[in-house]
């Protein structure tokens, strides 16, 4: 099984056959065979097996291998992964009742193609040459071999059936066939019967001759026993259907088929194909005399595989050609009509009147002497009178086996007539040459309408639905005759006159004009339009126009036969379509090159049986529209492969085992499959097909891509059944394809595949959301940052303001405390002095105290002003000032002072606050020395480096113990507190008996 599931790849090379020309044409028989050979892509000219699967593919088994055919191209199917190469040749093939395809291979192997259930049987069976396969309704398949062996396959179980199962002994092949009820019939050694549960039951004994079997639709089987056709039913009743007689007596039947009409086809070894009808056996010509396989397709065509001659398609001819071989004395017909007895009358171009009796043409023979020898035109009236126009001999009337006289005959005497018309009112109208005139024979009287010579010859006359008689000349003039009124209505009068070859009136009231070189003119309700090859008409030289009963207008033209739908002309005139669709019948229908005749009328005939008779130069074409329309409903389309950037991503498998790396395309169900395409693809190629084996070359496709376009795009004719679409944007699409048949009928069964083009990551929702989110967040961040910055700036301003206010408050406090206290004291001293004015000595003391206090006030003021003055804001100023103060102060209190300052003081700015506090600390320290230390010398040292300022004040006084008195401790705490306020510190080291060291340290802050 593992083997089976592997790839069964389609051969890379899809072969197209060139053009639509059949390899050969067999003319003038009821059956038309067309064949395909290796040069058209067939893998091998020997076709051993044929089968048609559900979706429509025609499978072709050859010694070279397996191929499938859609009417246009053969695709080789490689079985490499299913079975080894020596077995690849196919000996016979059978479509099973449940859709599987059974292939009997070279060297005896059997392959079952059934999608995922495919498998090969190689070792379980013999290696002899297989011959026949039949699958029964009970789920078993029988396989017979040359040499008489039969194997039975049930599921995956294989067993050989032997004589004890009822199989007759002998080397004769056991023929097999499955009837309509699913029973498997067998025939061997003259015995015929049914296999039931692996047991061969005999139904009838016949002569032991080589036998072939095929199911009979009415029950039982057809058997070909030797050259005899028999029918055998379950009860053993045997009916004899006669014998065929091959040229070579060694000929035996190889294959049999009953067609949908119940007729039997028999393929033979040497004598080709026999068709058996109620009339007996008839040979049907094929490309080769050795027939190996036969099937009937769903459209009713018979397909025959030959031994070296390729593949034949056989179907009834829809168009036959009558020429000399059909009895015509001359193959070109000028005028044609049908009498009330159904006999067709015609005139040949060389002036002979002919009639077709019993399907055979014969010249009209008249024993009388006045037989017209140069006949031009012929028509028949409802009284079954045949009116015959002649050259220079006037008009004849044939009725009831003889020529009769008629009133007004003398008016036609010795005239040349080119056109005859019987109107619905029973009048006979005739177009006369030299002199030009139109004559009307009405109630025994002749009315004559003369015309000038320059109109040349009247070629065509027709009566429209309104009862107008229309006449057209070879110069191109068109006249309408109503009662006695003649009106010239030549449509192309203003242009170069164009010769008119024919006229035709359709029941819709339209008059049709066939021109020599200008296509077709249409005059309807007073409106004139022309259609020529620019608008899709197959030919511009139109000699015959005739309508069939299916809505088509048929044309005989210089380039042959073609037809156009009547409604196409309407749609084209209404602007709904830009072109009419012309369907040409030529080589594809087995026809030779044909050219229409023109000259006299009535020129075409629509027979009462619906057949159309259109005279051509080399033969009279007889068209049976009924046959053309048989089994010709528009084909369903099938998507076969999808390629992205030339790489297959999905394919239709059908009976073939699915390829794991490709997505499977189902037959036609909308939405069943969704293909995911990467966003960076460059192109998508859709391959599709449709099965119309009758006229594959006429199949057209149209497609649309929902999501891009809503209207259909029609494929160019003769293309490769593929569409390439360039890069698709991100989104969902539906690719839909529909097919139409040769008649232009579009199938409603479209093949659809849903596509999703995945987005690039930047097209995904989450990515876009993320971008929006990131953008929003960054905006928020910026706004927050800006407002934060603004707040910080505001805060700095406020801090500065607060610092300034603190500074001002401090100055105010200093002034109050120091200066205020001094001045208050002075005020009080002044008052005291005033009170003591009677005692000069006391006043003197007071005044001395006042002046001392005033000096103190001045000094205090000086200190305050010094601290506030911005000019003093450097370290150097501070040290100068502090040093000066120390020297002055200590001198007044009688203590020696030693200063030890650095030689150069770095240029550093100090804030007012800082200066003030540092100075006060130094001052306090000096003050303490004076008050408490009892020292004789003070050593003031200043150390400045990159990191800090250090002031060391050392004395040689008494020092202090751990618990200095209150005043001193307050002072020391004050110093520490002040230094802490400005971010520095102050250490006091008291050594009892050996002085005190005060160290003030201020680390530089970065912005100091």
């Amino acid at each position, binding site marked *: 099984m593992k083997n089976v599931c592997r790839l069964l790849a389609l051969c890379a090379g899809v072969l197209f056959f060139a053009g639509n020309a059949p390899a050969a044409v067999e003319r003038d028989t009821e059956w038309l065979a067309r064949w395909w050979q290796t040069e058209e892509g067939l893998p091998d000219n020997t076709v051993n097996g044929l089968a048609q699967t559900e979706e429509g593919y025609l499978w072709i088994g050859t010694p070279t291998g397996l191929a499938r055919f859609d009417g246009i191209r053969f695709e080789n199917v490689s079985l490499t992964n299913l079975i080894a190469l020596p077995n690849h040749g196919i000996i016979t093939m059978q479509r099973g009742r449940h859709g599987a395809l059974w292939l009997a291979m070279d060297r005896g192997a059997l392959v079952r193609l059934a999608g995922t259930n495919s498998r090969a049987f190689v070792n379980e069976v013999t290696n002899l040459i297989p011959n026949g396969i039949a699958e029964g309704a009970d789920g078993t398949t029988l396989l017979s071999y040359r040499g008489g062996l039969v194997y039975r396959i049930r599921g995956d179980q294989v067993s050989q059936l032997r004589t004890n199962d009822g199989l007759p002994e002998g080397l004769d092949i056991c023929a097999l066939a499955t009837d309509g009820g699913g029973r498997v019939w067998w025939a061997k050694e003259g015995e015929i019967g049914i296999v039931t549960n692996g047991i061969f039951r005999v139904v009838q004994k016949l002569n032991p001759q080589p036998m072939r079997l095929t199911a009979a639709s009415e029950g039982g089987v057809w058997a070909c026993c030797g050259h005899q056709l028999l029918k055998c039913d379950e009860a053993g009743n045997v009916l004899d259907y006669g014998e065929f007689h091959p040229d070579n007596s060694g000929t035996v039947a190889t294959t049999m088929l009953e067609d949908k009409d119940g007729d039997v086809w028999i393929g033979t070894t040497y004598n080709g194909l026999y068709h058996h009808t109620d009339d007996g056996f008839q040979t049907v010509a094929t490309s080769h005399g050795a027939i190996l396989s036969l099937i009937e397709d769903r459209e009713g065509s018979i397909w025959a595989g030959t031994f070296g001659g390729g593949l034949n398609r056989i179907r009834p001819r829809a168009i036959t050609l009558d020429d000399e071989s059909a009895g015509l004395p001359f193959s070109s017909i000028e005028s044609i009509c049908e009498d009330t007895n159904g006999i067709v009358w015609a005139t040949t171009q060389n002036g002979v009147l002919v009639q077709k009796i019993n399907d055979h043409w014969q010249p009209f023979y008249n024993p009388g002497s006045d037989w017209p020898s140069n006949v031009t035109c012929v028509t028949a009236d409802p009284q079954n009178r045949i009116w015959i126009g002649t050259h220079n001999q006037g008009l004849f009337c044939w009725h009831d086996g003889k020529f009769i006289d008629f009133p007004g005959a003398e008016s036609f005497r010795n005239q040349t007539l080119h056109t005859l018309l019987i109107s619905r009112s029973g009048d006979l109208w005739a177009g006369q040459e030299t002199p030009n005139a139109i004559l009307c024979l009405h109630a025994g009287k002749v009315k004559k309408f003369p015309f000038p010579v320059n109109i040349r010859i009247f070629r065509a006359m027709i009566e429209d639905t309104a009862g107008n008689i229309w006449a057209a000349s070879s110069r191109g003039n068109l006249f309408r005759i109503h009662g006695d009124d003649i009106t010239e209505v030549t449509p192309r009068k203003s242009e170069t006159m164009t010769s008119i070859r024919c006229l035709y009136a359709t029941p819709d009231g339209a008059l049709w004009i066939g021109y020599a070189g200008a296509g077709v003119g249409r005059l309807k309700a007073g409106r004139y339009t022309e259609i020529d090859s620019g608008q899709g008409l197959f030919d511009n030289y139109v000699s015959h126009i005739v309508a069939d009963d299916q809505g088509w207008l048929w044309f005989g033209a210089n380039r042959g036969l073609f037809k156009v739908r009547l409604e196409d002309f309407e749609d084209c005139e209404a602007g709904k379509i830009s072109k009419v669709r012309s369907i040409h019948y030529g080589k594809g229908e087995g026809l030779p090159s044909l050219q229409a005749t023109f000259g006299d009328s009535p020129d075409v005939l629509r027979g009462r049986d619906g057949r159309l008779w259109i005279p051509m130069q080399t033969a009279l074409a007889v068209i049976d529209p009924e046959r053309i329309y048989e089994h010709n409903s528009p084909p369903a389309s099938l998507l076969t492969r999808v390629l992205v950037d030339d790489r297959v991503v999905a394919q239709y498998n059908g009976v073939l085992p699915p390829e794991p790396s490709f997505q499977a395309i189902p037959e036609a169900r909308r939405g069943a499959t969704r293909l995911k395409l990467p966003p960076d693809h460059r192109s998508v190629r859709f391959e599709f097909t449709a099965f119309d084996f009758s006229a594959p070359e006429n199949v057209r496709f149209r497609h649309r891509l929902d999501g891009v376009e809503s209207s259909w795009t029609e494929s160019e004719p003769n293309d490769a059944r593929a569409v390439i679409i360039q890069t698709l944007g991100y989104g969902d699409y539906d690719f839909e394809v529909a097919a139409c048949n040769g008649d232009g009928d579009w199938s409603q069964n479209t093949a659809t595949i849903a596509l999703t083009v995945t987005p690039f990551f930047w097209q995904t929702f989450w990515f876009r959301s993320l971008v929006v989110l990131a953008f929003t967040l960054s905006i928020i961040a910026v706004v927050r940052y800006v407002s934060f910055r603004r*707040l910080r700036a*505001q805060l700095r301003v406020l801090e500065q303001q607060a610092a300034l206010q603190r500074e001002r408050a401090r100055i105010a*406090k200093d002034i109050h405390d120091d200066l*205020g206290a001094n001045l*208050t*004291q002075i*005020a*009080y001293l002044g*008052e005291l002095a005033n009170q003591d004015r009677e005692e000069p000595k006391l006043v003197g003391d007071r005044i001395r105290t006042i002046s001392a206090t005033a000096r103190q006030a001045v000094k205090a003021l000086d200190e305050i002003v010094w601290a506030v003055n911005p000019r003093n804001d450097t370290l150097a100023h501070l040290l100068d000032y502090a040093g000066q103060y120390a020297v002055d102060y200590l001198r007044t209190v009688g203590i020696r002072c030693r200063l030890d300052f650095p030689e150069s003081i770095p240029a550093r700015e100090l804030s007012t606050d800082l200066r003030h506090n540092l100075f006060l600390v130094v001052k306090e320290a000096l003050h303490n020395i004076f008050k408490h230390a009892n020292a004789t010398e003070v050593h003031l040292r200043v150390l400045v480096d990159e990191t800090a300022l250090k002031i060391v004040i050392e004395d040689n006084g008494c020092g202090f113990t751990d618990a200095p008195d209150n005043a001193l401790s307050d002072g020391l705490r004050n110093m520490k507190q002040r230094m802490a306020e400005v971010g520095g510190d102050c250490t006091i080291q008291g050594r009892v008996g050996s002085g005190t060291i005060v160290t003030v340290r201020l680390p530089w802050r970065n912005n100091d």
Partner: protein
Amino acid sequence: MRISVSIVEDSRGTRESLTELLDRAPSLRFVSAHANGEDAVEKIPGNAPDVVLMDINLPKMNGIECVHQIKEKLPKTHVLMLTTYEEGDLIFDSLRKGASGYLLKNLPPAELISAIEQVHAGGAPMSMQIARKVVTHFQQIKKPQSEVDKLTKREHEILALLAKGFLYKEIADQLGISLSTVRAHLHTVYEKLHVQSRTEAVVKFLGR
């Protein structure tokens, strides 16, 4: 009977000259002089003077607090503030804490003595500028409360610390409360001040 007077004054020179002045006044009896508030609070109750002259700017305990403590112990003693400061806050704080009058140091000594007599007689002497300020205060239309005034004491404390640049953790440590309490208080502060961030709150606080 002479009026007994104590003085609290940190400036030695002023203290001494004032002592001498008061001592000489015939209507007064100088009792004691104190250089700081602690000393005053400790010793004045023992003397129970009729009038205490109180400076505001003292080294540790300020004069206003000192008034409060003295008045607690000596409700009958009149305390007269004698200071160079004429800020409204100080005036009202002093009066609220029990001061009977508010005098500026630029008051001539004769008037000072007269003021002591007045207060003893049941008056409330004030320097002219101070009296005017008190009157003006009562004439002022009550100002709308600023947002910052809506804060509770604790919130105010926290915000003040925050404005000084302390971290939440430090604030919590200083106030002896938990970190989450600090946060909760700040949350209320933000709402009351209609602000979104710490910085904004501080700006509002400082800019009030």
